């Protein structure tokens, strides 16, 4: 793998302006940052454009100006090296768990048989063995998000984007899934080198990330860049976490 300081993603001068009935609303204002091999969290007040930024990074949305570079190559459309996990899970209701995971694999060049094998492996990895033929509506919220995670991981992405991945879940389930995602992140068997997680939960960001970018309200600008230099595994009760949290919260409000 590449040197850990070399950027995997470069976000350059990103600006996003919406035009609506003659009025223009700028949600992202000239944002630049780099993502090396790390777990990056982006926090900010709700409606500040965090999710828009994540969509632009995946190529789902286009910036008004600026660009996103993945290993130096501009990202203009979704690619298989970047996986996404959605807040609302975004599972196709008429596809089974297996179908939902397989659906993403068509992006890669592997054969049908291989797709089935890979999909099954990742369903197992997220603890959903035996639910392959279930439909999303038969699953609990936590299980649905596991499918979402399996779908993203099955691509063996180098970058994993997460948009408020735990905020639709109840507190207990969210806590379990957070730990599992961290386990996957630290497990060398997974090729994912960079994670970008958008959240409005500052405690969650501090607990999980190596670095936290703090955005201001509309239009969003980077107001702070906090390295969380704590060893893993971390404890939720570590008092240092509260210091970081207080510092970031004071920047937002």
């Amino acid at each position: 793998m590449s040197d850990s300081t070399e950027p995997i993603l470069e976000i350059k001068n990103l600006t996003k302006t919406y035009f609506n009935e003659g009025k223009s609303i700028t949600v992202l204002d000239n944002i630049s940052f780099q993502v090396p091999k790390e777990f990056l969290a982006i926090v900010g007040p709700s409606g500040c454009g965090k999710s828009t930024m994540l969509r632009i990074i995946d190529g789902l949305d286009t910036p008004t100006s600026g660009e996103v570079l993945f290993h130096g190559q501009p990202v203009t459309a979704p690619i298989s090296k970047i996986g996404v996990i959605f807040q609302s899970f975004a599972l196709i209701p008429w596809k089974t768990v297996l179908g939902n995971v397989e659906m993403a694999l068509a992006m890669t060049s592997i054969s049908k048989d291989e797709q089935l094998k890979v999909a099954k492996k990742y369903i197992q990895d997220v603890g959903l063995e035996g639910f392959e033929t279930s439909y999303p509506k038969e699953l609990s919220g936590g299980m649905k998000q596991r499918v979402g995670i399996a779908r993203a991981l099955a691509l063996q992405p180098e970058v994993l984007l997460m948009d408020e991945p735990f905020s639709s879940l109840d507190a207990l389930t969210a806590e379990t899934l957070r730990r599992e995602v961290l386990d996957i992140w630290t497990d060398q068997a997974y090729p994912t080198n960079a994670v970008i997680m958008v959240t409005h939960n500052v405690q969650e960001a501090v607990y999980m990330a190596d670095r936290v970018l703090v955005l201001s309200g509309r239009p969003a600008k980077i107001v702070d860049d906090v390295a969380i230099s704590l060893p893993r595994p971390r404890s939720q009760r570590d008092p240092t976490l509260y210091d970081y949290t207080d510092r970031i919260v004071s920047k937002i409000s």
Partner: protein
Amino acid sequence: MTLAYFLALAFALAYGITTAMNHKASHVLLPLLDVLQSVPVLGFLPVVFIFFVTNLPVQVGQEFASIILIFTAMVWAPTFGVIAGVNAIPQDIKEASRAYGVKGLSYLRQIVLPAVFPELVWSSLLAWGGGWYLIPIEEVFSFPGHPLPPLPGLGYYIAAAASNRDLPLSLLALAVLVLIILAIDELVWKPLGARAEKYKYESVAAPQGPGQRRGRISTNVKKYEERLVSPIFSFLKYERASLSSLLEAVHLKRRFHVPEKIRVQERTVRHALWGRIISFAIALTLILVSIPALRGIPPDSLGNALQVIETNVGYGTIAFDAAGSLLRIFTAYVIALGWTLGAGILISRSERASKLLVPVFDIGQSIPATALFPIIILLIVNPFKENTVALNLASILLLLAGMQWYLLFNVVGAIRGLPTDLLEASSAYGIRGRRFVKEILVPASYPAILIGSIQAWGGGWNATIVSEYITDPNNLSMPHTVPGLGSLLQMASNYSDPYASAVVITAAVLVMTGTVLTINRLVWRRLLRKAEKYKLEA
């Protein structure tokens, strides 16, 4: 028509509020409403006309009959709307007004009327739609036995111009009609609808849609979901409601303990369906018994009735007619499904196509299908000298005009309503092009296609009555007909013997209802079961 509307409105308010607020009265009034509503309006058109025209001076009688018929077509939606509106007043509001001593007339004015206002506006929109549908038929209504001067109105002008082979003039009259309809939409219903928003009880603020366009589409979807011109086919609606709740209950029962609430709901819905069938049966028996009784014939007499059918039509003919109607509806349905799916996909894929097509559809759907009839006759039937193929083609086109919008607005609504997260997930994981259409768009709109199909078939059966038998105002003795249940109904109503008329009409309606129910059971019920899977979660 305006007169009929205000009559309908007054009736709806009085009847609706009494029914909804007086518990005892509702036991009588609600079933009564159900029975009254089940009477097929179009089927009784001739009877009502003859009654008024023979008992009053022709001109007056005719106007009167027209108003009564439009009234009967308009009145049900607002009446049910008022009942729903009163029932929707939240318990806490009721208690609060009791606590603060708001009662009697002031309760009516301050609480009840505002509460029913949104439903009233909405159902009025439906009522006007139904009214516009009837107007072109009524204005040129006539029968061989009783030649009637047509009522002066736009429907008449379109028909007369078409009959004189004056295409530009008839198109002009049509354009004027559409302009009037659109103008009333813009000037009356839209402002009223905007005002109605204020009176809605909602716990959560409704999200603002991104612009007017979407609003129009969803209005149209709702409109087509609820518009049923001839109440006989509201059968379908009940059938559907009972089906889906049954399905839900069955589905839930297997997995969880079914809560009492759902079970009760299931029972009431089933009750409504049976009530409908029973009330319909009572109405039929009344017709069969009362008419012979009035004419002094012993009401003996299924045998008698069967005899009448045999001599007047013959069973073979009825079966043949039913097959004819079925085949034409099916053809029109296939055409409608094909083009609406295409249009739906196009609208979903390209913003430009959507901007171009949606206003066109908007105008298109506002044309009452019946106003198109004379023009289609002029363009297709006349040039080919009553050739059977041309006649059938014309009839299919007329059916299409009555069926396609149900499908279109359901399909477009479903495609527009696809949740953004699904679209993004598909895009993020590389599903596009043909795969997107096959794996996302079509499955996502499958329930809507099904609902639209069921409604379109209902609309189609309904339209058979007017699309298989069309009178020509300049040549009353030579109506354009194709063999089908609709034309059988119309011809039967022209028999000189009212008993024979009633018997044959009843037979035709029974065959039609039977066919509809059979298709429901064999086709739609199975498909609905499958559709459960494709429902998007709320």
